[in-house]
């Protein structure tokens, strides 16, 4: 049962290393990808709290939420013409898309496993 929790913890580390992290400060500030040291620290923190399934799931969703909000901030910058780097927004949007799809796939597998257990005849 620890394998799905480990997978969820690694999803929770996605949002800690998005392209253009902390882009909410100023619209014209050039966002840079998070350093690998920060990503490794966040991944270790996410995996250390492998307690209940609920906390792992909430951390995973927070990570995906961080990726999505980063992509939204960059979309606003692109729409208002403040963006200097088109590649930044495209890579952030792709990462948000992949992270969301991964979360949905894990949720589907978890729900399917739960239903298989519930269908076991007594």
């Amino acid at each position, binding site marked *: 049962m620890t394998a799905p929790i480990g997978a969820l913890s690694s999803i929770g580390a996605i949002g800690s290393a998005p392209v253009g992290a902390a882009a909410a400060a100023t619209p014209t500030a050039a966002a840079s990808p*998070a*350093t690998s*040291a920060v990503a490794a620290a966040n991944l270790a923190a996410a995996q250390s709290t492998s307690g209940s399934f609920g906390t792992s799931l909430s951390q995973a969703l927070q990570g995906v939420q961080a990726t999505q909000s980063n992509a939204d901030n960059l979309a606003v910058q692109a729409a208002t013409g403040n963006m200097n780097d088109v590649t930044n927004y495209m*890579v952030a949007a792709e990462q948000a898309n*992949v992270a969301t*799809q991964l979360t949905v*796939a894990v949720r589907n597998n978890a729900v*399917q496993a739960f239903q298989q257990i519930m269908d076991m005849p007594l």
Partner: protein
Amino acid sequence: MFEAMNTAYTGTEATQAWMTAISNNLANMNDVVPGDKAAYRAEYVDVAENAGTGAYGIGTGVSVTGVTLSSADGTLEHDPSSALADAQGDVRVPDVDMAQQMTDLIMAQRGYEANLNTISDAESAYKAALGLTL
């Protein structure tokens, strides 16, 4: 999880800075100044590998560390008929080699596209993992 994409993104940043420097050099390569002033100095972008390593000790990409300027002497030409000529009739033109700049522009463009290919191939690989149905 996205180490390959983030590393390739730093590569696109560096090549974009290179292209910006090349366009600045090409835009300013005909700046004529009097002989006693400094000529336009061509810009060269300095890049270095990022400090620190990611998983398995693999590096984390490239970053622009600064801009190196070429010599301020340029080429001293004797042109008394120019409106900008100084007392001796000399003007300075920048020593920007257009052939070298255009070759660098091709290299910067190919480098940018290569990094974009890395990003798209990494995304395809990650999405292929999503196709695994248990």
